[in-house]
């Protein structure tokens, strides 16, 4: 939702020019006082630029291995890989936007696979009941986290860490290996797609991403999510009730993680209690969100950017697989990428107010003639 600076109409051409007090000169000088660097490349555009670069490099590397990056099968693989992480990352985007965090997603994913598979028991007739059960449980988990963060003032990191551990213990105790059986209809979904290029799961991701984007843009809830993440106190001053949006995004995040689990189930056919933690979805989803330009502190970012980040990871994974890079080394690279990504983006987000006396000012400035000026106001 990072709106770019619109093209402004020529002041003289505005219909009501007569009632405007500002002449052109004034407008020009006012614009000249704007902080430098505000016109840098929009971060969403940047991430997609990086994505294109990564794709190009990957295509080349793949070709060097004698394979075609853009083959039907390969694109299918990349898009499939994107769909699970993508759903989780979309949820994580919401939570990070509001200024919180969700480290419990791997366990919610695992929980979702075992509950759904256990409920379906391989029968289509159980499908809808199992789906509902699964999603309700996920929603409850999200609700608990949301309440901890908003009402009990526990930081999202701790709340989700704790809840994640709780779920993890439950899983470890009650499920020792594969569990249950997915219904054939679900498994069919996992295999289906358009023209064998675009898997259905990817379409589900796109639909979910679209719905969340619309929510962020066109509902009060969405606007308030950005506000609370941007500056909780400013939001409160404007009368925004901060508890509801926080709880809502945590519920949505857990629901999306549950949905991701269902997609995984459609491929594996059975519930697996460790599939979430093995997939390292907590760190990867945070990484995708940060790469996509969302600020870790909240208030700025987009689902579109996150999808770009997810795509980059999926493509990197794919090419590392083709080049037969040891899977464990992947983790090493990922860890490095994550830390560097956050470091780079963390610097970008610092807002520097222009100084009162810009460096090379020659003589004594007379009061009031300093352009674009402010200092950190000396608060008495």
């Amino acid at each position: 939702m990072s709106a770019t600076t619109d093209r402004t109409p020529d002041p003289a051409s505005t219909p009501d020019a007569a009632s405007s007090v500002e002449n052109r000169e004034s407008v020009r000088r006012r614009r000249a006082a704007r902080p430098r660097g505000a016109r840098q490349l929009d971060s969403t555009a940047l991430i997609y630029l990086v994505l294109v670069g990564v794709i190009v490099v990957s295509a080349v590397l793949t070709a060097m291995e004698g394979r075609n990056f853009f083959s039907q099968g390969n694109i299918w693989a990349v898009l499939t890989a994107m769909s699970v992480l993508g759903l989780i990352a979309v949820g994580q985007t919401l939570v990070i936007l509001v200024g919180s965090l969700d480290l419990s997603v791997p366990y919610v994913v695992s929980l979702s696979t075992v509950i759904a598979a256990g409920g379906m028991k391989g029968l289509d007739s159980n499908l809808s009941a199992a789906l509902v059960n699964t999603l309700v449980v996920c929603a409850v988990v999200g609700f608990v986290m949301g309440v901890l963060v908003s009402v009990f003032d526990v930081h999202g990191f701790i709340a989700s860490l704790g809840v994640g551990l709780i779920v993890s213990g439950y899983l470890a105790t009650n499920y020792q290996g594969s569990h249950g059986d997915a219904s054939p209809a679900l498994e069919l979904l996992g295999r289906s797609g358009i023209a064998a290029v675009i898997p259905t799961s990817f379409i589900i991701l796109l639909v979910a991403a679209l719905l969340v984007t619309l929510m962020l843009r066109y509902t009060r809830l969405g606007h308030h999510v950005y506000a609370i993440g941007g500056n909780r106190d400013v939001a409160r001053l404007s009368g925004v009730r901060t508890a509801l949006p926080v709880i809502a995004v945590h519920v949505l995040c857990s629901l999306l993680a549950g949905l991701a689990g269902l997609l995984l189930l459609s491929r594996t056919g059975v519930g697996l209690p460790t599939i979430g933690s093995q997939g390292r979805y907590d760190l990867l989803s945070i990484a995708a969100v940060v790469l996509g330009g969302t600020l870790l502190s909240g208030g700025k970012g987009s689902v579109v950017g996150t999808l770009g980040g997810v795509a980059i990871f999926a493509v990197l994974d794919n090419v590392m697989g083709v080049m037969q890079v040891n899977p464990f080394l992947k983790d090493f690279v990922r860890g490095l990428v994550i830390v560097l990504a956050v470091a780079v983006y963390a610097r970008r987000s610092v807002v520097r107010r222009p100084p009162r006396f810009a460096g090379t000012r020659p003589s004594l400035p007379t009061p009031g003639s300093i352009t674009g000026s402010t200092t950190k106001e000396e608060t008495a």
Partner: protein
Amino acid sequence: MPPNTPTHDPGENALVATGMSKSFFGNTVLDGLDLTLRAGEVHGLVGENGAGKSTLMKMLAGVHTPDRGTIVVGGEEVSFSHPVQAQRAGVSTVFQEFNLLLERTIAENIWLGREPRRFGRFGPVDTARMRRDTEELLTGLGVSGLTAGTLVRSLSVAEQQIVEIAKAVSFDARVIQMDEPTAALADHEVELLYSIIRRLTDRGVAILYVSHRLKEIFDLCSTITILKDGQHVATRPATELSEAELVRLMVGRPLTTYFPDKPVDVAVGDVRLALSGVGNGYVDDITLDVRAGEIVGIAGLQGSGRTELLETVFGVHPVARGSIALDGSPLQVTSPRQGVRARLAFITEDRKAKGLALNQSILDNALGVVRSVFPRRTGTARREMPGVLSNLDVAAHSLSQEVQFLSGGNQQKVVLARWLSIDPLVVLMDEPTRGIDVGAKHRVYELMRELTRQGVAVLMVSSELPEVIGMSDRILVMRDGTLAGELPAGASEEAVLGMATGAASEEAA
């Protein structure tokens, strides 16, 4: 409602506040103030730092609840327990620190919490209407060339202020308060603000204009209210006042024999601290010197750069232009640690935020600087500390008591002990007696005299005019980031304030 039709009858009382009073922890900050704002009028509110202006504004804005007093807006008595209520009652405030979401657009900021919806209660947000309404607001203020979809972060400070004003107007405000609105504006931007204010008054809005820039007060205001020490001094039509008269009303207290006399046995020595043309992003062309055994006071109004000057000397901000010398040799500090090593002490303005670790004990806080920079001296410092603290009359149960439970005065004494332990050559003090009781103040003044006896050079920033005048051997006045001038000891409060505000004052020392 079309933005350009007059909304309120000129001449009627937009807001009448009576008997407004507020105390914090037994300190009366505002006592029985009456204020009447008439529609279509700009009413100026002046007073030096600490006079109570900001407290009054916050009460009218719904940030503080008054201990006593009534507020009547448009004929109806109101009380606010939350800023949103004040806004809804028609009182909007533009604070110095803007309450804007930087990563959101102008429209999103203005309509935060009140986003218009299509199709009634559960429909989606009507972004098109938000944009239209925003543009109407902006043109209604006479501003062109700002589009509703621009991110606030990419606006200049003046433009951000316009957004704040537009937001205030969007509440259909009868009263708009502005706190030091031109502090960060350039000349031509001030012109734009003037024209916006004129537009607002044409529409019957009452404006409460708080500023220390007296020129603007006289440019804009038809009535001026003067506060001093929380009391109402006068409310007069602007035509009946001159700048000098205004300054005289702002100050003028009975002299007190409150300050320890300057000791006769202090020999002011050589120049210890010398600044020559020092400048960076916060201050410009500062040339001053402080001699050993001397107390140099720095006066000036809020925002004049005094704290930033001390921070520059101490090494918090780098020196971009000019140079600093300590005892004759060049001083290059680029971090507080280097400042401490050079035996500079910095007593910050806000002891709770930057001067103490509140959860730690008195002893740990008092030894904090020594432990950080001169760890080997910890043993000696530890042995001497009980004596130092008792010399300062620190009142507590024991040295292991957490400082957060001490009174302000005792906390400040712990801060002093902390810095004395490094045997400083120069002591930089920022508002050394703010928020502390009379007894502790006296002890601090005595300590300052003792320091001069030991040959320490003291550079003191203070907003309390009596303090600056009573304690300083020389008074420097800052204004807008530079030195406005120097006054000798014992100068009048009017002379100091006059130099600080830039008012033409016929009174010299």
